[in-house]
């Protein structure tokens, strides 16, 4: 007998237990979230004020997406560099990386955004003779870079933790079969590290999406700023911020489900 015939094995769960297991395992939280989103959606389909608010605020989605995904791309590239420098045996890159991580983690996100967007960049532009109103100086780019610089520090630590979680023996085994450093990282360490990194990286992406609301302080017209403009002119604060909250919730929960699906896909079989 070589393979177990699973089809004819008796069902280990008794009939009653199966029902209660499904009841407990059912994603009730998701039903709750959907119900929470359903209220504003119902209102905006039936109420003119809610509909007006949604149509006004949704124009900010483009910039919310730009800041989120451009910011995350910058954070990933820079963060990988910082994490490799942080793990370096050489003192100079390691200390520069540690300085950067502590600097960013030690300053509140909002303060960094104000500093970068309204103080440092304009100061640099005026010294370098760059027109702050040119495309390169646009608020969308400034906001994306600010968010990217901040999250690079967070992501660097996530990547480092993931890479260091791979046992030393794996590296040594790779070396012993004749792989060089680069090959060991690419084929042995990274595929194992990414499984440990993914959940934390997903959390950072969702946190970044939420923190993109902070760039509204730069007068960037993403969805938070759009709802500030809309409520500031008609005082429909309840409506405006319910719509805004529902939009963020839809985006973050959608992203979270997508990430959970991807984590299951790459999980160790």
């Amino acid at each position, binding site marked *: 007998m070589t393979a177990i015939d699973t089809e004819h094995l008796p069902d280990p769960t008794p009939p009653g237990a199966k029902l209660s297991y499904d009841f407990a395992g059912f994603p009730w939280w998701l039903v709750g979230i959907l119900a929470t989103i359903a209220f504003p959606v119902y209102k905006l389909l039936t109420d003119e004020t809610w509909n007006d608010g949604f149509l006004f605020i949704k124009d900010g989605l483009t910039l919310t997406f730009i800041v989120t995904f451009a910011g995350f791309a910058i954070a990933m590239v820079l963060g990988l560099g910082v994490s490799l420098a942080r793990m370096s045996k050489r003192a100079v890159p390691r200390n520069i990386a540690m300085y950067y991580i502590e600097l960013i983690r030690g300053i509140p996100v909002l303060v960094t955004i104000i500093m970068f967007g*309204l103080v440092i960049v*304009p*100061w640099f*532009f*005026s010294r370098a003779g760059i*027109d*702050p*109103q040119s495309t390169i*100086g646009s*608020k969308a780019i400034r906001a994306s870079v600010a968010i990217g610089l901040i999250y690079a520090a967070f992501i660097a630590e996530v990547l480092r933790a993931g890479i260091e979680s791979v046992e030393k023996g794996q590296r040594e085994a790779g070396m012993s079969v004749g792989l060089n450093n680069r090959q060991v990282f690419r084929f042995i360490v990274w595929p194992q590290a990414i499984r440990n990194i993914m959940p934390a990286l997903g959390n950072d992406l969702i946190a970044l999406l939420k923190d993109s609301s902070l760039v*509204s*302080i730069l*007068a960037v017209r993403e969805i938070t*700023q759009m709802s*500030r*403009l809309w*409520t*500031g*002119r*008609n*005082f429909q*604060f309840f409506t405006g911020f319910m719509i805004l909250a529902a939009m963020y919730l839809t985006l973050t929960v959608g992203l979270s489900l997508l990430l959970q699906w991807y984590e299951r896909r790459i999980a160790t079989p």
Partner: protein
Amino acid sequence: MKNATRIFVLALVLGLVATACSSADESLEGRTVTVAIENLYPPFNFIDEVTGQGAGFDYDIWNEICSRLDCKAEFVEAVWPDVILETGDGVYDTAADGISITEERKEVVAYSDSYMTTIQKIMVRSDESRWATADEFFASNSKLGTQVGTTNYELATTLTNESNIDAFDLFPTAVLALLSGDVDAVIIDDVAGQGYVGEGNEGTKLLEGDLQSDPLGFIYAKGSELIDPVNEIIADMKSDGTMDKLIKKWFIDFKA
């Protein structure tokens, strides 16, 4: 028992006397009136660099109103423009902050009579030579800074393309963006503009040309008991010269 009766009668008599007094001259009987301000809108309200305390027109006028009405003004920092809805909901007794009287806002708050009128103007960097008047500025289609939820922002949307307007959460941030060149002008109430131009503030100047004139009023929750007594005091202060004195002190003589 006898003592208790005596105290009760005494309290009743005192109560009657107090009621008689208050109806005679509109007294608020020493109650505290919470006045919402931002401390970010000179010369209406700001933190004095020397004393570290709040100062400005709003402080002086409400201390004066309260000294005449027998109340105690307590100044509370609030967030613009949310303060309008909060005051309408009764979070603060009133809000100062140089609030323009508009029909939209009347749907959520009650207004006092107007205590002064302001004119909206265009503020530019002091080395600006491209435009001499507000009309020339708007003809150029340049970037304009303003604050979220203000009549300045509302007016801006009628005078230029929405994509030319940067609306900041705080007024000083709009001025910062002007100085750094992110925007080329800021739309501002002339009286508030005085806090940013002139001596010690060589960075900015106002362009010729009045855009729109706005009456300013204090706001309350609808049905507030403060409305009538404060309106009487505002009328008194206008007729006895106190209002002119305060306006001269903060909007003409004062330099930030």
